[in-house]
């Protein structure tokens, strides 16, 4: 699925990540934590091929990212749902069209599109906001919309970068619940967050591995959480 083998990543002349190996097993649930600037976002980008490691190998679904052309990257991203912290949308399109965008660009059947979309918007509690434009949405609504867009293609893996960064505690619990539900459907989840309370809360619902980036290395955390 996603395999990182002894990778390193240099940024701005220095080594940001070093000697990192990770294999995301199907159906697993991971948290990635670490201080601000530790490289969590960079790590996620390495996981979905937006960045290539400067050393070591990163394989997506068995293929090394360095051997993939841009079409290959596009096809891999259809199998990996990504939720970014800043939740980028196409501001001129209504929410429903934004969420359906992955289906549109992959040329999926329109009937399937409508059915999936309605169910999905209801699932994230945005059925009533389908025609709203992204700038009209609140932070929590944007995060839920980003999550809906990330999963509409039924990807095998969902990567979320600080998905609760801009929302209150109640909304972060709601988002966590959605991610846990996805995991129960068999999806592999990796969440980068600095919110330890979120990780502690998740432990009541799901068996999660907690990884920490510290001093450029990836470590298994847990005992102190």
């Amino acid at each position: 699925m996603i395999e990182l083998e002894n990778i390193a990543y240099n940024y701005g002349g220095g080594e940001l990540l070093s000697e990192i190996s990770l294999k995301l097993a199907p159906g697993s649930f991971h948290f990635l934590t670490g201080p601000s600037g530790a490289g969590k976002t960079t790590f996620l980008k390495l996981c979905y091929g937006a960045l290539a490691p400067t050393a070591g190998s990163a394989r997506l679904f068995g293929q090394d990212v360095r051997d993939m052309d841009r079409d290959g990257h596009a096809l891999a991203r259809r199998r990996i749902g990504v939720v970014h912290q800043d939740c980028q949308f196409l501001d001129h399109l209504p929410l429903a069209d934004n969420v359906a965008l992955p289906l549109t660009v992959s040329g999926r059947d329109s009937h399937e599109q409508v059915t999936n979309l309605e169910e999905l918007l209801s699932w994230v509690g945005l059925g009533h906001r389908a025609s709203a434009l992204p700038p009209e949405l609140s932070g929590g609504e944007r995060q839920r919309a980003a999550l809906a867009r990330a999963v509409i293609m039924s990807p095998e893996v969902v990567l979320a970068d600080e998905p609760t960064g801009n929302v209150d505690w109640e909304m972060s619990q709601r988002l966590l619940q959605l991610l846990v539900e996805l995991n129960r459907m068999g999806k592999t989840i990796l969440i980068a967050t600095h919110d330890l309370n979120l990780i502690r809360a998740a432990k009541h619902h799901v068996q999660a591995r907690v990884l920490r980036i510290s001093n450029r290395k990836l470590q298994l955390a847990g005992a102190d959480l």
Partner: protein
Amino acid sequence: MKLIKTISSLIVGDVQADRVVPPTGFTARLTLFAAATMAFLTVFALALSLASGRLAQRWGDELAQSATLRISAPAEQLDAQTEAALSVLQSTPGVASARALGDDEQRALLAPWFGPDLPVDSLPIPQLIEILETDDGFDPAGLRLRLQAEVPGAVLDDHTRWRAPLERAAGRLRLLGWVAILLIGATTGVMITLAAQAALAANAQVVAVLRLIGARDAYIVRAFVRRFTLRALSGAAIGTVLGAGAMMLLPAAQEEGGFLTGLGFVGTGWLLLLLIPFLTAIVAYAATGAAARRTLSELA
């Protein structure tokens, strides 16, 4: 088959894909304006080229296979010398026919300079004889020698001296018209390329989002290319219609008007105007596609 598929996908399009690119903006107006202006200029360059072609053809047709004999002699000898010259011409191999121009014809020739009421009979005007040649033509040097001996006041003008530079000038003017059309096409391509690059740069977030969700570059390129091609087609259609309207407002060709009033389209020449929007669309399609692919590989 692939070409037909490409054209039909450009015309029919993909409603969803079309909406991916924000619909308005500076680049949309720039493309429309540039295409309209360039098409307008193309109409004039095309008119210039076609008019020059017609002119070269007319000069060639009218002056080839013909010559003029001018007889300058005292009034009392003029008729006799004219008779003698006609007699020489009739016996010259390569001359199909020869006839002396009447007063009315000579007056018509001089009218552009002296007006229509010129009293030809009271002026010492030389007598002109029009000579039409056979396909083989006559030997001008031999004819000149014979005329020198038998008609001392005759001067043979076989037109080659001034026909060749005129035809050459008309040919160059026509070439200039085509070069202008090529330059206009290239400029259109450059302007649309710049507009497409500006649009892609302004829509970097759109490109980032599309890539994040798994859009192939071909999809992104198609969305931009279709938008720009249709804009260029519309702009060029508007420019062509305006250019054609302006051509219609030019004065009609007249006998005394010469070259400039003949600038315009004749008969099926108007149909060539239909090509301008389509050629502009082809230029836009190629330019936007290349710009989009280059920009996307730089953004990768």
